């Protein structure tokens, strides 16, 4: 019922490379760790009791962050939130990811919290998940001698559940080059102005697309309002089909609200969360639109 003081006993091992990760993972009661910011509180609460903690952040490549115009962004799973926030290419090409990473907890925690840990922990309120989803990221899962790509769209399968198979670990997240002219916005609503877990997170990415009836496409993903982070396809369709305007945004936001299935808990009630999905979606759309088509109005 009450968290224990300090951490329960376990054995700590640092994996030097992927092979070591794989062999250490075989041990019963082994658990991977990067920043530990999700794992340690869970251990104090007795939610999980690993016998061995395998620190994987020193595996080569895990903390690399590199950008290529064609290939996009390669984010080692152990890249910290602050690394993302500070990185020039992330700021230039994936500002929505920088915004999401920046919204996590506090400055000092962001020095430890990793993006990989954030998505693997698979909490509905993980702030980077909606951003990674609208950027159509791909999870690079490393099995013994094999690598597999899992689309972010269906990576999280339930609260605390992911598509990671036994024997695999998350090595990196790859984000394709964003569509030309893309503008993104991550809006997070907490109980206080900053630093809270999100009770609603809305990621919107918009970009010009001549093939769309409206001339634009928008991708929308929602956090904290369902067991898993969600895209809002019906809302996206409305925006592709109709000229951007206040009415279109309102209609799209209504659809976004429709996909949200929040539950009432100590942080917020379901009704409020749903209505905030609508409010934040409209705000994010307005913001994105103002940047996409300056002066066009809505």
């Amino acid at each position, binding site marked *: 019922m009450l968290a224990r003081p*300090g951490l329960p006993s376990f054995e700590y091992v640092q994996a030097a490379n992927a092979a070591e990760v794989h062999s250490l993972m075989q041990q019963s009661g082994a658990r991977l760790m990067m920043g530990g910011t999700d794992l340690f509180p869970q251990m104090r609460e007795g939610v999980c009791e690993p016998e061995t903690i395998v620190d994987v952040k020193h595996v080569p490549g895990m903390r690399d962050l590199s950008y290529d115009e064609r290939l996009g962004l390669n984010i080692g799973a152990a890249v910290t939130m602050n690394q993302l926030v500070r990185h020039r290419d992330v700021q230039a090409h994936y500002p929505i990811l920088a915004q999401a990473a920046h919204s996590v907890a506090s400055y000092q925690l962001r*020095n430890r919290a990793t993006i990989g840990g954030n998505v693997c922990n698979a909490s509905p309120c993980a702030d980077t998940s909606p951003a990674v989803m609208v950027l159509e990221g791909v999870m690079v899962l490393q099995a013994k001698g094999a690598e597999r790509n899992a689309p972010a769209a269906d990576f999280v399968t339930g609260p605390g559940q992911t598509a990671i198979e036994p024997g695999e670990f998350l090595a990196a997240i790859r984000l394709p080059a964003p569509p030309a002219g893309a503008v993104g916005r991550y809006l997070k609503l907490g109980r206080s102005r900053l630093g809270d877990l999100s009770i609603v997170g809305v990621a919107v990415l918009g970009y010009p697309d001549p093939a769309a009836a409206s001339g634009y496409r928008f991708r929308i993903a929602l956090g904290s309002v369902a067991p898993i982070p969600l895209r809002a396809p019906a809302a996206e369709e409305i925006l592709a089909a109709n000229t951007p305007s206040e009415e279109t945004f309102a209609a799209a936001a209504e659809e976004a609200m429709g996909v949200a299935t929040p539950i009432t808990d100590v942080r917020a009630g379901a009704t409020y969360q749903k209505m905030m999905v609508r409010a934040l979606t409209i705000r994010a759309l307005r913001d994105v639109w103002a940047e996409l088509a300056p002066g066009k109005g809505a």
Partner: protein
Amino acid sequence: MHTITVTINGAAEYLAVRSNMTLLQMLREELGLTGTKNGCEAGECGACTVLLDGEPVNACMVLAVESDGHQVITVEGLAEGDELAPLQESFIELNAVQCGFCTPGMLTSAHALLQRHPKPTEDEIEEAVLGNLCRCTGYVRIVDAIRDAAGSSASASGKGGAR
């Protein structure tokens, strides 16, 4: 048990630590560096903030063994001998200290901020100490003291953030 070497406030320490010992426990219980405080052991309050290779971290959320081969600076390491750091002087001068329990963490967070941004904006100050809870001061003097130590009247950018 792991044997580790860690440089703390400039001096090398050789220690044997259990796997489940946190950096906070190591500092306080093994090294007697009690300036770093325990307010929650959960990454929530910031009282345990120390600098790991110059960057602030919650010492309660770092394993002692992870500090092997690294540099740690605690509140005890901010002054140069008897000479207080400008930040410490400003905290005294502007009455940014009340009960003092948040103070070590505030100072280490602020110290790192001034290393990153010698002339921080209001938003940067806010970002730097957002994770340091203080129940006494209402933060007003803490922000003033950081601004004062930076020797700047930080640009009045107001409060941004997602709204």
